[in-house]
């Protein structure tokens, strides 16, 4: 039976701390680990079962792209079983510093992307992951990475205005997609396979045929871009992007209404596309908030969730057809990324203060009388 999900019940379940501000975060496809990238060029892996923290060292710059290759979760219930064993151990031995080794994680590969233009492959479930392969993918920043639904193709994008496809198995280049006229900020594969979306600094979203490399159409997310004439610079781009599980919708998150790019005066927003029709509407926080939306996702229960920061941190939830958020949660620090847990009960944000916060979305059990 699926648990009850209620955004208004969202609260911090766990905080994972790191000494350096975080830049990105992703749950792995089995939901065992939370990976968080940091300004110290590392990726930190937090074990949701044991709390163990493992550093993945190999990048020489910031990582903002994290994606996974592997078989999705099989719902074995290992987490519940493990929790039961821990409870029994503590009951027998007391709440001392006794830890129970976690179950062996299911295997998967992590592909991470950095601001020196590199992609690194890792064995994500290894006890102490080391780089398996490094590919010089782009000239300048790699801003995002995604893996195709069949797990065979990795897509990357970056400041060289290119989208590139790579073989997931061995990192060999497959194809280069040219056509963006500005830095490409994000990529996402359509869940049905076959199509890839990419979005650039100037708000152009391209719809590519993965097999042929042809661009079928451009979609307009230009509300997310602005040339600031006072400071004479461009601000914009889809800081986060993703398809709904059924592929019917595409969300691009960023900043709108910019009046001062160099002070970050603007508002977070999500451009929500009807993928088939190509039309869009803009989702905005109901509360007055200054900042940028840095993470976005579609919850299987049917709501859109985004996270951002600027004047503090927030997570916003949109339900139904209302363009104004239905609920918001204050986060202790600017939220720089958002990830949804595969089991749908949790989400996590990467904090500018070095904390990765895991929020539960299930209502608290009523207190026993």
């Amino acid at each position, binding site marked *: 039976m699926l648990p009850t999900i209620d955004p208004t019940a969202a609260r911090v379940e766990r905080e994972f701390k790191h000494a350096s501000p975080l830049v990105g975060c992703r749950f792995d496809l089995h939901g065992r680990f939370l990976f968080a990238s940091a300004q110290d060029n590392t990726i930190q892996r937090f074990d949701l079962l044991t709390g163990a923290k493992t550093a993945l060292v190999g990048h020489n710059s910031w990582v903002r792209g994290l994606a996974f290759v592997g078989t999705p979760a099989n719902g074995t219930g290992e987490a519940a079983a493990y929790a039961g064993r821990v409870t029994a151990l503590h009951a027998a031995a007391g709440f001392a510093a006794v830890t129970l080794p976690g179950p062996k994680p299911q295997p998967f590969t992590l592909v991470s992307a950095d601001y020196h233009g590199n992609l690194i492959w890792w064995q994500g479930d290894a006890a102490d992951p080391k780089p398996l392969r490094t590919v010089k993918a782009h000239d300048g920043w790699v801003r995002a990475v995604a893996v195709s639904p069949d797990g065979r193709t990795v897509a990357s994008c970056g400041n060289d205005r290119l989208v590139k496809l790579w073989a997931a198995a061995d990192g060999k280049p497959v194809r280069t997609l040219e056509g963006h006229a500005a830095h490409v900020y994000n990529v996402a594969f359509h869940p049905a396979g076959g199509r890839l979306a990419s979005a650039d600094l100037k708000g152009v979203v391209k719809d590519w045929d993965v097999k042929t490399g042809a661009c079928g159409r451009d979609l307009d997310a230009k509300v997310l871009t602005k040339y600031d004439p006072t*400071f004479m610079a461009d601000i914009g781009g889809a800081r986060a992007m993703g398809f709904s599980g059924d592929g019917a919708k595409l969300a691009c998150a960023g900043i709108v209404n910019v009046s001062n790019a160099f002070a970050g005066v603007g508002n977070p927003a999500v451009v929500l596309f009807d993928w088939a029709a190509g039309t869009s509407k803009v989702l905005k926080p109901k509360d007055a908030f200054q900042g940028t939306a840095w993470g976005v996702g579609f919850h299987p229960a049917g709501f859109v969730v985004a996270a951002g920061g600027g004047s503090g941190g927030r997570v916003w939830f949109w339900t139904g057809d209302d363009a104004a958020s239905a609920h918001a949660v204050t986060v202790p620090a600017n939220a720089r990324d958002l990830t949804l847990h595969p089991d749908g009960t949790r989400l996590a944000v990467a904090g500018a203060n070095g904390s990765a916060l895991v929020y539960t979305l299930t209502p608290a059990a009523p207190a026993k009388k």
Partner: protein
Amino acid sequence: MPACSYACHSANHRASRRAFLGAAGAAAVLGPAGFASPAAARELAKTQKRVLVIFLAGGVSQLETWDPKPGTDTGGPFAAIPTAVPGTRIGELLPHTAKQMKRIALVRGLNSVSPDHGIGEKIMLTGRKPEAGVEYPHIGAVSAKLLGADGQAMPGHVHVFPAGAGGRSQDATFLGPKFASVPVVGGKPPADLFRPAGLTDEADRQRDDLRQKLSDKFAKSRRSAATEAYTESFAQAERVFRKADVFDISKEDPKTVARYGTHDFGRHLLLGRRLLESGVTYVKVSHSNYDTHHENFDFHIEQLGEFDRPFAALLDDLADRGMLDSTLVVVMSEMGRTPKINDRYGRDHWSAAWSVALAGCGIKGGAVVGKTNAGGTAVTDREVGSGHLFHTYLRALGLNPTKNFYPNERPIPIADPKADAITEILL
């Protein structure tokens, strides 16, 4: 156009930059008898010096340019790249500049005291902290005064900046309006420069005579610095009009225009070179903007992407034209940016430890002076201030910064006497 007949005939206004030539051995202070010999004047004409200041407005990040700290908690995501000078690395956003490093000297130990835009700019351009009771002239006015030739065709001091990014500045102070900056907004000629179509030479001369008569009559009872400035602006406009072609960069080879780039800064820097070639003594070209409190790294990609290639092109062009040895080039801001990265990926105002780059006349290319600690939070070796830089500019130009100006007979040192030149970067 004759000078207004009410122009005062004080020693200041008869001042000649020849009196300050260290090379001429002139020991006399400024005064009517302080002219160098004809031989020295001929030598000066042959080696006319000029100055170009590239002002990166808003406060460029030293960590993204001249003093990168990759792999530290203040370093940010960019790498440091090797340059043409072995052992010297600069930020990865300056690949073309890196190839020019043999011509460039770096001062990495600058402490300019004030992290404020306005005060910082004054400190950097006057070589002094603001003081009550005296307004010091900017280096542009000083250069125009000391290096300019009498009766030169073009103004001695020009400031090129983007529209909306500045205005006319009171930068000549007691040196007088003749040496104040002429604003060239958006790279366009001064407003109303060109004679209206249909107005003949004779008609223009008659209207100017009328203006002169009215000005003289007005000034008999109301002479002031303001009226003198107004009059001088006409004189400058006329001088510029005679060389209006200099503003037309379409006269350049299209390949040259392409090397500088068609964005504002590229065009303005190319115009700056043309102005120097046409005889302007001091040109300041401002690039806007670097005040990156938010998303510092993205914006430095964009702004330095505009700076890097034209700056390299400029140095090549000056060298090709035989002008680099007689043109002092300075790249500065009003301040640097904090090593600490804030929670919006920005860097804030910072004056305690940052960098300036110099090239050209009198400068030892490839030299690096001053060091900061691992995180760039403090100067650890050879800390200098704006006064030291001011002395250095003047020494590099062959001028003696220990001399005085004498506005209203009051001695005012040209440069801050508490400082001296950074000899490590002087030839």
